[in-house]
């Protein structure tokens, strides 16, 4: 029993190995943070643009947006990453691991965000549109100043959950050798012959995402919508 505990500590919490490999993990952490921020920025911007565009109800555009959203909700993100990374070079469009991961996850987040926000737009009562239009605001101004702010607020909880789920997917970048936390940690673990770098990697994820999850819980209560 005592021996077992010693072995566990030696394997997973080896101070020497941790010190040796910490810089690599930090490097990976930096990459993870960078991709995550890029994904959140691009994904949410694209999702908002698509949701707003859909409000104009232009037939063919609607069909295209719905198809885009459906496909990216149905495909596993790892499949999207692998298609972009391995299949696009056949079109002479080589992609860096960073681009493939960032672009894939941005598209996935955009699809989910569009769907969530569009549902929010639909949930804003008709009277809000009418009141705004009756004061002379145009369609775009009504959408931008009156409807979207309400739609965005009432959809904060599902959106926060989705943002967390998609950005956690940056770990999938390791499959195409993006040098983020998982890549760094598992190559370090095999080089060191010890899983302590994996522990470090796990800790790095917790350091990044636990604050995000806590922030998410706070946002959920902060924006709980009472009508």
């Amino acid at each position, binding site marked *: 029993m005592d021996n077992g505990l010693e072995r566990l500590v030696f394997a997973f919490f080896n101070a020497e190995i941790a010190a040796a490999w910490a810089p690599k993990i930090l490097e990976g952490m930096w990459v993870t943070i960078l991709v995550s921020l890029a994904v959140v920025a691009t994904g949410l911007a694209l999702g908002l643009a698509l949701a707003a565009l859909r409000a104009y109800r232009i037939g063919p555009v609607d069909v295209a947006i719905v198809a885009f959203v459906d496909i990216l909700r149905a495909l596993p993100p790892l499949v999207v990453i692998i298609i972009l990374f391995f299949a696009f070079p056949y079109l002479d469009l080589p992609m860096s691991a960073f681009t493939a991961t960032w672009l894939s996850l941005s598209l996935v987040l955009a699809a989910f965000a569009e769907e969530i926000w569009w549902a929010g737009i639909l949930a804003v*009562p008709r*009277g*809000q549109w*009418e*009141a*705004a*239009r*009756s*004061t*002379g*605001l*145009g369609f775009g*101004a009504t959408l931008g*100043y*009156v409807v979207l*702010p*309400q739609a965005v*607020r009432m959809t904060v909880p599902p959106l926060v959950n989705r943002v967390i789920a998609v950005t956690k997917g940056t770990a999938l970048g390791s499959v195409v050798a993006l040098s983020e936390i998982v890549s760094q940690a598992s190559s370090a673990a095999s080089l060191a012959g010890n899983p302590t770098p994996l522990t470090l990697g796990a800790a790095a994820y917790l350091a990044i995402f636990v604050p995000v999850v806590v922030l998410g819980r706070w946002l959920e209560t902060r924006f709980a919508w*009472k*009508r």
Partner: protein
Amino acid sequence: MTSAEAVPPAPILELVALHKNFGPLKVLDGIDLAVRPRELVFVIGPSGSGKSTLLRCCNRLEEPDSGAVIVDGADIMRPGTDLNAVRQKIGMVFQSFNLYPHMTALGNVTLALRKVQGLARDAAEARGRAALAQVGLADKENSYPNALSGGQQQRVGIARALALGPKIVLFDEPTSALDPELVGSVLAVMRELKAAGMTMVVVSHELAFARAAADRVVFMEGGRIVEQGSPEAIFGNPREARTRAFVSRLSQGHG
């Protein structure tokens, strides 16, 4: 001077042969109505008679099928009409208030001033405060709608319409969603507006208000104007049997 007074003033709002169908349902079946400056026209009629649709056609929130809507001398049904400009001249007050829940009272009142009239924030807020003061809510400018009573919310709704400097204000059952004890504050504001010379069209069931403030009462049924006249005539001595039946039901319903 004297000769000008002899000519009746041109109507601010005139509806000519207005028709509106929802599928097979004839909701407006040839409405002719002229509202002159400073006039308060009070519209009554059974549920589904087309009162709301009538008001909503005046600023084309609802698209009429045929007929003319003449606002301040111009037919707004003509192609090329700048609707958003026209709507600034026509204030509208809703049964369910429709305040923007994510904005303060002042934000609600100033949004169109800033985004349509293009006023700077300071100028917009000065006019917004004046409008809020006019409805007795100067101290509530920073309150959000969910912190206001129904009566206060509706007065913000009125201020939102007034801030744009409209030539006419349309009220669609402004007190129907209010608890009885809050109705008075809204009617008081409307009475003051009338006294200040505002032109108004009011759809409502508040007969006491109509007797005190209306210049003309219009009774609608089945998408047509059945009868119109002074409050005394319509409530006291209507010509049409349908009007009499409706008015007596209405006065019983309100004790």
